[in-house]
């Protein structure tokens, strides 16, 4: 069956390609044909000027991520017949949040620079440590994060990176968790301190796109959540992100639900909360200013507090067991 494709072309070194445009192609598709096979067919038989990255053809090398009908996928891992059937068209574009160099090829340097920033290697204790036993549970904690093939699909779809280019992004943070969460790592606390600075773990907007579009099930958001939890365990709290979480934890323990007024105050602190007053007054005019929940607890709040207490007890026990080892 014949399938029509539209591919976004761009080539700044030619007169005609300086402005991006869409070029139509058509391939004879057999069942199971992948987008990458279609690209190879086009480049081999129809248009040798078409540029794209590829290598392994089996979802391992991470070279061929592109936008397929608007969303980032591996070209080698997406079949063209179902993709075309679903959307009645097949449009290929370079990944987002990166500068396009030519056609489907983007400048990946910022990706690697972010990766460099998290020092993507284990740092064992300086003195020669005794051997570290790694249990199955220890390995499982970082197992998903280890599956990353650095294809950049998550960074392409990340809604925070779209706005804030300095954000480390989901790929580098998943790598950071792979190291911080490794029981053999000795520099975890230092790493968490750096990761808690501006444009680190607290820049994530929890849009969940990284989880949805990772072709390997890395779930970078889960890695970010674990980094945040570990940073709090290490008492790294001098930032709005950590204070925001602490305020929520307190609020649920106290009244069983979110106390918006207290959240704002505890997260921003006294001075920045003062800056919110004009905004607050405008909200008050519309009856929208949140008032503290002085008395409105949920029913049976005792159950909630018992759950908190039990979880804290288990946590302390775990920490004690760890230091015993």
């Amino acid at each position, binding site marked *: 069956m014949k399938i029509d494709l539209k591919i976004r072309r761009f080539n700044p070194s030619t007169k005609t390609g300086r402005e991006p445009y869409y070029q139509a192609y058509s391939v004879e598709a057999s069942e199971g044909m992948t987008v990458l096979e279609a690209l190879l067919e086009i480049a081999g038989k129809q248009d040798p000027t078409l540029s794209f990255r590829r290598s392994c053809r089996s979802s391992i090398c991470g070279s061929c991520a592109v936008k397929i*009908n*608007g969303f980032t996928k591996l070209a080698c891992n997406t079949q063209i017949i179902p993709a075309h059937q*679903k959307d009645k068209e097949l449009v290929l574009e370079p990944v987002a949040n990166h500068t396009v160099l030519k056609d489907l090829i983007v400048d990946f340097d910022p990706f690697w620079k972010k990766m460099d920033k998290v020092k993507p290697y284990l740092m064992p204790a300086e003195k020669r440590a005794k051997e570290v036993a790694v249990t199955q549970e220890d390995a499982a904690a970082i197992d998903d994060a280890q599956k990353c093939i650095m294809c950049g699909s998550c960074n392409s779809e990340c*809604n*925070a990176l*779209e*706005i*804030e280019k300095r954000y480390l992004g989901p790929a580098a943070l998943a790598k950071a968790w792979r190291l911080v969460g490794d029981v053999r790592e000795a520099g975890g606390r230092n790493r968490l301190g750096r990761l808690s600075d501006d444009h680190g773990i*607290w*820049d*994530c*907007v*929890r*849009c*969940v*796109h990284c*989880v*949805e579009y990772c072709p390997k099930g890395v779930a970078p958001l889960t890695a970010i*959540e*674990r980094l*945040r*939890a570990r940073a*709090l365990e290490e008492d790294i709290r001098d930032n*709005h*992100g950590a204070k*925001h*979480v602490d305020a*929520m*934890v307190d*609020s*649920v323990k106290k009244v*069983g*639900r*979110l106390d*918006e007024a207290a*959240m*704002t105050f505890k*997260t*921003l602190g006294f001075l920045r909360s003062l800056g919110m007053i004009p*905004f607050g007054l*405008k*909200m008050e005019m*519309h*009856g*929208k200013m*949140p*008032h503290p*929940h002085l008395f409105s607890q*949920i*029913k049976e709040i*005792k*159950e*909630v507090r*018992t*759950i908190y*207490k*039990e*979880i804290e007890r*288990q*946590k302390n026990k775990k920490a004690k067991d760890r230091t015993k080892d």
Partner: protein
Amino acid sequence: MKALKYAYYPGCASQEITKESNSTTRLVTAKLGIELHDMPKANCCGAGLLTDYDYDLYIALNARIFAEAEQMGMDILTICSTCLMVMSRAAFDLRNSPVLLEKTNKVLAKAGLHYSGSTKVKHLLWVLAKDLGVVKLSGMVEAPLGGLKVAPFYGCHSLRPSDALGFDDPERPWSLEAVLKAIGAEVVDYTGKTKCCGFQVDLVTEETAIEMTGTRLLDAKGQGAECIVTPCPFCHINLDNYQASAEKQLEADIKLPVFHLAQMVGLALGLRATHMGMSRHMVSAEKILR
């Protein structure tokens, strides 16, 4: 047809800052014959922040919510996309890991509770689009919206992660469009409809949040929308409360009224705007209501 009965979980935001969403949902569901049963014990789902603190605590507190619904013998209906996502992820993990369920029940047992793993979590949007159905919904419309150009804004949490939510297609979502068409609106399509409103970082990296909000609003406006409708109170807070800040930061004129899903359906069912708390919105909806 079986009576539509749900354990009602409005979420914290809709009990306070966006309480017009809660009160309107009660009016709309009453009119549609959907029974909502209050959950007086229900605690906050954590909005993702408890997950950042301690995964086990997040799971146990959500299991406590599910246990209450299980006792009531009903699925949960929420009107908050973030509650939907957070609770669905917890329910999904508990369903897929008997070890986690057992561990969580040991914690719950200390508080005299038990959760067997059966609770389903749904959004009002899903109930309208599927449980009630758009055919039935359109049959109950008294004041069709007359081709009002509405931009649906899903935001992130009503669509992703799609495996845990298990309802709509995150890439080509249909539910909000189907409901809007059923009540006589003209649907405006735009790329930002499934993206983030920025709410989660309002208090953390405010500039990012405001730019994100403004980008979505301008995107919808650029495609000819006269107003926006969202199934999420947090998206509403950003798109409405923060709209003036976005206008300032992006140096743009936006003035796009933002409605809660229940309000838009309420209009089509003939409910009066004054009964649906629209004066509580920061961006006036008057030009639409006229």
